[in-house]
């Protein structure tokens, strides 16, 4: 009968925030009458260990480098894979070869790998010192191999301890494959854990049957069983309030504390309301649980107030895949009224209106991830994003005016795209230098659960597991195929040479952004467009003609010329179609207006953020 339950979050969980799954499961177990599980926060301990054994040469910055940049190359998993496979050389040659082809510096990961075995031994000693009956591993992205390495050693040293895996890496067929390929794992929980994990613990206590635990993978004698995943997603009212007390207590005593500002993680919704109707063709992030559910405004306010007050932390990361649009009228205005100096991150749809951006800003949202993905309309259509390139530029402009940091990536490599699709937009990128550039441009990878994965006829019929797994797992391709998330396909869309043009343009955009401004000023009855962009004439363009002023303001919404002409005429302002076309052409040539597929968008912001390089 399990009395002592340990939950672990091993590297590469974010160092500056507690594990949300662990926080949720602590509350779920307590609510189910199972007591409060204790926790082992492996990310903190691994970083502390590295600091100790390298006299501070490796620490939070180096950990974060691997955690934030290593996922698409499996670098964090590679650090621990020699320990998992009891072979210090396993994956070394393959990783060196992989890295050399891609220009990846392997020095940091190689140095860390040298400490992995001793750390795993230490972690197991510390976990077993707590005399657990059950150890649960929460595993998402690069947590798989570190978790497997620790679990395997626990099995060797303490055969009676029950080992349970759960989390994003266990969703759908991946969980069954993990259970099948690593027999030292007793149970794998697939799907949402708040019901299944307590149900498993009850079953282990003799209260209920293993066959009734939703989504559970388990061994029934000689037979591997995989229970059906719970048919209905957890209602938002039953999602627990996470308990982060233990993480904050450990952080307070940790030498890591001085290097970071802790951030709360909150979850106000699960699933994706856009994906329910139009799943983005490349996106598999929601796994088997796309159905959108959001908490009530009162619940969100109460949880936020509770966590902020309890931990005295004003930095908040909402992990929702997309914000509930009703929150613009309910939750966010109420947060603004509190007048707390929050710094919040939210993921949003990219068709934000200025009023919505203002609501975000007033509520303390400083960072948004709008899923921009591209500025090329035909490619956005291939993604089924439901927005145009013009609309995305508008959102970048309006977020710039509001001073919101915008994180986005430029994705290419879609089956039907051609270089010609990009020509018009790439030519105009220098005019966008005052707006926030993408973090990077990158070719899409085939993700499990995405429409491209599920339906090969959409353009990616040939696929093998991604190259990164060669230096991570020692498994046959058939087993890997069931267990991993990323897949390699023959490149589609832009050739690498064509993509090079995009990469160069994005690099230049990065170089120019911090020193570039293009701003509209309304002063003394005229419009002044102050151009202070790099590589553009530093001029003040003064619009004095009422028709030109009205036209420019109207172009801030994005218009076609016929509609713009009609709207001016309706306002009693005179400008012939020819003159309007010539004037707008001049604005485009001068980089003051962006155009794509017959639409025109004014580019000047209405205010400028404080930019810090």
């Amino acid at each position, binding site marked *: 009968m399990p009395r002592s339950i340990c939950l672990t979050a091993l590297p590469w969980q974010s160092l500056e925030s507690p594990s949300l799954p662990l926080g949720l499961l602590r509350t779920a177990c307590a609510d189910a009458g199972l007591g409060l599980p204790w926790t082992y926060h492996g990310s903190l301990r691994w970083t502390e260990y590295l600091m100790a054994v390298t006299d501070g040469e490796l620490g939070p910055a180096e950990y974060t480098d691997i955690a934030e940049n290593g996922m698409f190359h499996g670098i964090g998993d590679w650090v621990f894979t020699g320990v998992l496979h009891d072979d210090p050389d396993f994956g070394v040659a393959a990783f060196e070869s992989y890295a050399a082809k891609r220009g990846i510096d392997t020095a940091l990961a190689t140095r860390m790998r040298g400490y992995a075995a001793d750390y795993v031994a230490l972690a197991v000693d510390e976990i077993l010192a707590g005399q657990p009956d059950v150890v649960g591993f929460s595993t998402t992205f690069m947590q798989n191999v570190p978790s497997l390495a620790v679990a395997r050693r626990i099995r060797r040293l303490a055969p009676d301890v029950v080992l349970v895996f759960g989390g994003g890496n266990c969703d759908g067929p991946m969980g069954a494959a993990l259970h099948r390929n690593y027999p030292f794992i007793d149970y794998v929980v697939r799907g949402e854990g708040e019901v299944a994990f307590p149900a498993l613990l009850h079953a282990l206590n003799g209260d209920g049957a293993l066959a009734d635990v939703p989504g559970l993978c388990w061994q029934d004698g000689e037979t591997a069983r995989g229970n059906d995943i719970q048919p209905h997603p957890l209602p938002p009212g039953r999602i627990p309030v996470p308990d982060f007390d233990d993480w904050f207590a450990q952080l307070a005593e940790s030498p890591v504390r*001085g290097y970071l*500002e802790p951030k709360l993680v909150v979850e106000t919704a699960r699933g994706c309301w856009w994906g329910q109707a139009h799943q983005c063709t490349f996106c598999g992030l929601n796994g088997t649980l796309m159905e959108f559910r959001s908490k009530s405004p009162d619940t969100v306010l109460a949880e936020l*107030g509770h966590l*902020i*007050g309890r931990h*005295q932390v*004003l930095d908040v990361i909402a992990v929702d895949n997309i914000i509930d649009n009703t929150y613009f009228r309910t939750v966010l205005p109420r947060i603004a009224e*509190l*007048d*707390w*100096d929050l*710094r919040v991150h939210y993921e949003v749809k990219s068709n934000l209106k200025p009023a919505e951006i203002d609501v975000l800003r007033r509520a303390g949202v*400083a*960072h948004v991830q709008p899923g921009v993905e591209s500025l090329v309309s035909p490619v956005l259509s291939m993604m089924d994003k439901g927005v145009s390139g013009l609309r995305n530029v508008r959102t970048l402009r309006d977020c*710039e005016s509001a*001073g*919101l*940091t915008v994180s986005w990536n430029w994705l290419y490599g879609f089956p039907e795209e051609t270089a010609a699709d990009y020509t018009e937009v790439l030519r105009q990128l220098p005019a966008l230098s005052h707006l*926030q550039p993408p973090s990077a441009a990158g070719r899409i990878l085939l993700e499990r659960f995405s429409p491209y994965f599920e339906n090969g006829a959409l353009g990616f019929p040939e696929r093998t597991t991604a190259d990164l797994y060669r230096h991570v797992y020692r498994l046959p391709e058939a087993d890997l195929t069931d267990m991993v998330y990323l897949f390699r396909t023959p490149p589609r869309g832009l050739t690498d040479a064509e993509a090079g043009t995009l990469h160069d343009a994005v690099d230049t955009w990065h170089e120019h952004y911090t020193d570039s*401004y293009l*701003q509209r*000023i*309304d*002063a003394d009855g005229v419009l*002044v467009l*102050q151009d*202070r962009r790099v590589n553009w004439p*530093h*001029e*003040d*363009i*003064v*619009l*004095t*003609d009422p028709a*030109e002023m009205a036209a420019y303001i109207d172009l801030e919404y994005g218009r076609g010329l016929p509609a713009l002409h009609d709207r001016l005429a309706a306002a009693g302002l005179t400008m012939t179609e020819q003159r309007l076309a010539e*004037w707008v052409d001049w604005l485009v040539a001068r980089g003051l207006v962006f155009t794509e597929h017959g639409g025109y968008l004014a580019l000047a912001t209405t*205010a*400028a*953020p*404080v*930019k*810090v390089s």
Partner: protein
Amino acid sequence: MTTTSATTLGSGRGLGREIDASELHPDVAIRAAEDGCERLVVTGPVVTGQDIDADLGLLRFLREATSKTLRVAWQLAGRPLVAERDLVHLVPPTAGVDSAAAECVTAWRGGYRYGSYHYRWGPDFVTVKDIRPGGPPVHLTIDGDSAQQFRELTDVADLADLSPAATTALADAVEFGLAVRGERTFLVLPWRMRRWPVPYVAA
């Protein structure tokens, strides 16, 4: 439509307003920001180094202007009667008009970084972040009655207007480098963070 060189409306950007050196009061910064103004140009040099309370008045204006992300073009005369490190989180002068001022301006501009010393309000607590050059990074949380006293200190300028509890709190604040005390006035040094920079993690 006309095209002019950038200098026609001043070489700066954003809506600007000229103010006299005698007008450097926090309310001026507040009103300018409310009017959509993004920059202030101070006419004439701002004389410092003669009266600590006058210098604190200047810093109070700069504290408000920095918090409102106003860019202020101003010239320094003399050298303020506070430590150099207590200046560098505030919007610096563009130039110095004498040798003492020029030396101060060089150090001030060299050490300035937006958000390097600020505070934030939460429910019944306040956090303070100090990453100014010349000292170790400090992250401080003030809660309970002390948080309320801190709020009073940020709202008040004259020593005579302080409650007894806040007077005691001021002594602690001065000891911890959170405030500077003059003859008749005092100043809480960090400013309230209301607008995050881009990127948002840079402050």
